[in-house]
């Protein structure tokens, strides 16, 4: 498989949100605006790339029976590193995303890719897979965030598009499920034949 298609695959054919349906919690919870979705996606991508790379390096020497605990420790380490870095340099973003940064540890995308891809492939391929899946996740979150922000607060990336408050339900919990449901159906119908 060519290097480019490794990345492209994560965007459409194996899009983590609309096709694999993994990592639903941050997808629903943090997409109240396009910017929040984008930030959450990038944070996940950071952990995904690094953990994929390290796991592909260590997996040949890890005994079979303890591979899950080892992966979890590695992922949790990178998540904590990310937490510390965010607290230090982007404290506002850290506060907005709150609980969902530590919860990247249990995001099934990260452990899923470790098991399904990184443990069987080389460092470079694993890094590219991390970039691809991470980009796909970021893209989906940004799109969901954008739709909810436009409908819910009449703005896009913080810029006011039309006056007024928009349909508030879209910013709240029901809107998250509704938008994801419709986008998933649209994705299936038109993009992924």
């Amino acid at each position: 498989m060519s290097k480019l298609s490794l990345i492209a695959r994560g965007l459409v054919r194996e899009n983590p949100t609309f096709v694999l349906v993994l990592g639903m919690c941050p997808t629903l919870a943090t997409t109240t605006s396009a910017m929040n979705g984008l930030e959450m996606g990038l944070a996940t991508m950071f952990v995904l790339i690094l953990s994929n790379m390290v796991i592909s390096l260590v997996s040949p020497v890890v005994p079979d029976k303890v591979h899950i605990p080892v992966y979890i420790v590695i992922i949790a380490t990178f998540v904590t590193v990310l937490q510390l870095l965010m607290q230090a340099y982007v404290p506002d973003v850290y506060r907005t995303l709150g609980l969902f940064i530590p919860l990247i540890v249990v995001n099934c995308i990260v452990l899923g890719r470790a098991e399904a891809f990184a443990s069987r492939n080389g460092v470079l391929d694993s890094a590219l897979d991390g970039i691809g899946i991470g980009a796909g996740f970021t893209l989906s979150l940004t799109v969901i965030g954008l739709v909810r922000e436009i409908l819910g607060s009449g703005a896009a990336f913080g810029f006011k598009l039309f006056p007024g408050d928009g349909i508030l339900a879209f910013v709240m919990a029901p809107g998250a499920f509704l938008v994801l449901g419709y986008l998933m159906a649209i994705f299936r119908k038109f993009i992924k034949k």
Partner: protein
Amino acid sequence: MAAVSNLRNMVLCLFGVCLVCSAILGATYVVTEEPIAQASARALSDALGEVLPQDCTPCTTAEPIVLDGTSYECYTARDAGGNVAAYAVKTVSGGFGGPIELLVGVYPDGRVCGTKVLSHSETPGLGAKCATDEGFINQFKGFEGRFAVRKDGGDIDAITASTITSKAYVKGVEAAVKAVKSLGGQGNE
């Protein structure tokens, strides 16, 4: 893919991974400790500047005020003559989506000087306005009156469609004022 599992290499492997990971974490912690402290100090001094009167210097270490079993962090600000100009009190009250953490500037006589939301998890577009809606926030400046929203017979105009948030906000401000008044009563300062 993996090596054969036996007790020795499992233990060794887990031990090794944990050792390396702890080392990485420790190093990151040491590197980021300073910036994290700076970031939170900057956030605090910005907030103090907003809620306190212009012509005074806030002290940057908090003293606790204990009232009815709750401890509040209180920052005392003094004017050029060394007299207490105002207090800034940190309060937490339960809003719609979670706690609302407020920093409230209060004059020694119990009038409100200014308020600022330090953190909240209210609904964007609704309760989240409590951090940005100037009409709502400005009515607390110099406020002395009944601490309740108009619906409950008080003097505060609630944010439209966010009564729970508004009530929590008012409650937080009221707690700060009460804490400061308790100071005056005891004659501590």
